[in-house]
């Protein structure tokens, strides 16, 4: 295993810490909402608080499995080549979310299809762009006109006068 990689062992620990942190956050939030007893019964933080405690305890067991019992010690979580292909897939996706929030889903979808196809399949610009435009147009026909459910629109649609 000369290649650089992320070990499963370290990811097991990271994930256990992550879920543990969520558990602690939940306990704090529930504590603020009140975990005691009210005239109408248990207060709103009561149930989530104890579930939060369960998450913390189970995360500790998972941490223990990795640290004490040494489970998954020599397994690979991600190696270089796989990390690259996951990144090629995931980065455009994150960009898609960010762009869509600002420019709306139609423009977002067009740009995402364009870049994702370029990046993952090395398609030519015009092929990727026309596929993107076609997908956006299909969404408009299916959702906006067919099912009459509006999708998120941005400045471009406002400028074109599409609502």
């Amino acid at each position, binding site marked *: 295993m000369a290649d650089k990689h992320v070990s499963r062992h370290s*990811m*097991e620990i990271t*994930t256990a810490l*992550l*879920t543990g942190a*969520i*558990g602690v*956050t*939940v306990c704090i*939030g*529930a504590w*603020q*909402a009140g975990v005691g007893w009210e005239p*109408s*019964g*248990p*207060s*709103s933080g*009561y*149930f*989530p608080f104890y*579930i*939060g405690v*369960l*998450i913390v305890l*189970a*995360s500790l*067991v*998972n941490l223990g*499995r990795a640290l004490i019992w040494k489970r998954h010690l020599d397994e690979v*979580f*991600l190696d270089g080549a796989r990390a690259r*292909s*996951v990144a090629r*897939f*995931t980065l*455009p*996706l*994150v960009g*898609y*979310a960010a762009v*869509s*929030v600002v420019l709306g*889903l139609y423009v*977002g*979808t067009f740009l*995402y*299809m364009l870049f*994702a*196809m370029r990046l*993952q*399949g090395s*398609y030519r610009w015009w092929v990727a762009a026309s*596929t993107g435009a076609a*997908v956006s147009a299909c*969404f408009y026909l299916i*959702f906006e006109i067919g*099912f009459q459910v509006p*999708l*998120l629109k941005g400045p471009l649609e406002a400028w074109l006068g599409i609502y």
Partner: protein
Amino acid sequence: MDNLMHLMDGFATVLSWYHITIMVIGVLLGVLVGVLPGLGAPNGVSLLLPLTFTMDPISAIILLSCMYWGALFGGSTTSILFNIPGEPSSVATTFDGYPMARDGQATRALTLAFISAGLGALAGVVMITLLSSWVAEFGLRFSSPEYFAVYFLAFASFIGMSSSAPSKTLVSLALGLVFATVGMDAVSGGLRLTFGIPDLVKGISFLVAVMGLFGIAELMVTTEEGLHFKGIKARIRPMDVLRTAAEMPRYAVALVRSILIGIWMGITPAGPTAASFMSHGIAKRFSKHPERFGKGEPSGIVSPEAADHSAGTSALLPMLALGVPGSATAAVMMGGLMIWGLTPGPMLFVERPDFVWGLIASMYLGNLVAVVLVLATVPLYASILRVPFAIIGPLIIAVIFTGVYQVANSTFDILLVLLFALLGYLFKKLDYPVAPLVLAMVLGDRAEEAFRQSMVFSDGSVAVFWSNPLVSTIMGLGVFMLAWPLVSKMIGLRAFRRRSAMKPEASQERPRQGAETPR
């Protein structure tokens, strides 16, 4: 007999051109999501759900349930032709389905799979027809403590029956329960766990969670493998279909056994995936030729398929009659019921018999439609998988994003789904089960309400959960399920020691088989 009358009424509702068209659309869309990698039944149903908000509940449930049947069939198709399970529950079908198709018997493999799947589903529906009123009547006797006990049993069986480590299942389950509590507290009206973020006041939708956890995360794992399908050309010849249908009686024993396993695993929330693995394992163990398994043995296709589909169908019984779904997809559908303004559970049989029996009648027809349609359209769907993943992958993502937005017209959800995708990716890679999270998210509010009401009855004493024979029995079963991993380990260890003491040379192979079958 009462049930049969109701069923006839149901058929009267369902047998209209409009509903048959909806069935066909549902099945076709279902096969599509079943065939496409990364888009499974739970995710497909979630995507379609926002579009049904304006439909009447009967048409909506027909659309969604037919999509479910279609997805189950679609998953088997890719398992056999491409050695890629479209659904987790069709993994066991690849063991013998793909080898048989590779030997040039693709039509035979597909026909065996579809017919046994159809029969499995049919058996599940018959069981639902016979038992549902009875279970619902039984459920009418439940009050809050019993309800909480049933939810507890469902959660406990997930932890006890899961193939993952119990602590990992517990984390997944508890996270789901917590996500369900975010936002407005339905009992007191107060806010909780919003941490001052206004977008969290409306709560976290389970649909967003499903699309992140099942959809995007699944695709991320798929891209790692660098997808290139090595498919087998499928051309369905009617003569081969008939010839294969004629050899079905030979597998009657395997079929009945698998259906029973499937029905049992579907009613208890172990789910179709566990059922298909277990059924394949048992078929191999009881076979006269265990060495043929994995090389295209027919009963190795019949068994997992029949169990998969009978479990998938049976999962709707507890959902309808008790409000406890038996699989992730059933959980999503139950969430849909609540969005349409229906309350799943025994009262549904009293208040909306037209809905319940319309759904049950549609299950008979829907599965029939599915078998016919899927046989007719296999070549078409197989050709979809020849479209490069660089186009299909982003397209699926785009569909998921529009679906996420449609859940609540919220831009916040678009960012939230990314967090769920990250969580789902970590969970998938590290063997945390994801289905319990979804189930807990759908059931969370109801479980909490039942818990709080019980606490009010008893003035805060947990003894209320052991206060009468009914609730004690259910709680006892739950505790037994929780303890099951320990119990089975002890039994396994003892058997292992005895065996290795008797036959030292056999000890290497035997325990591995034992570890496979409980799944």
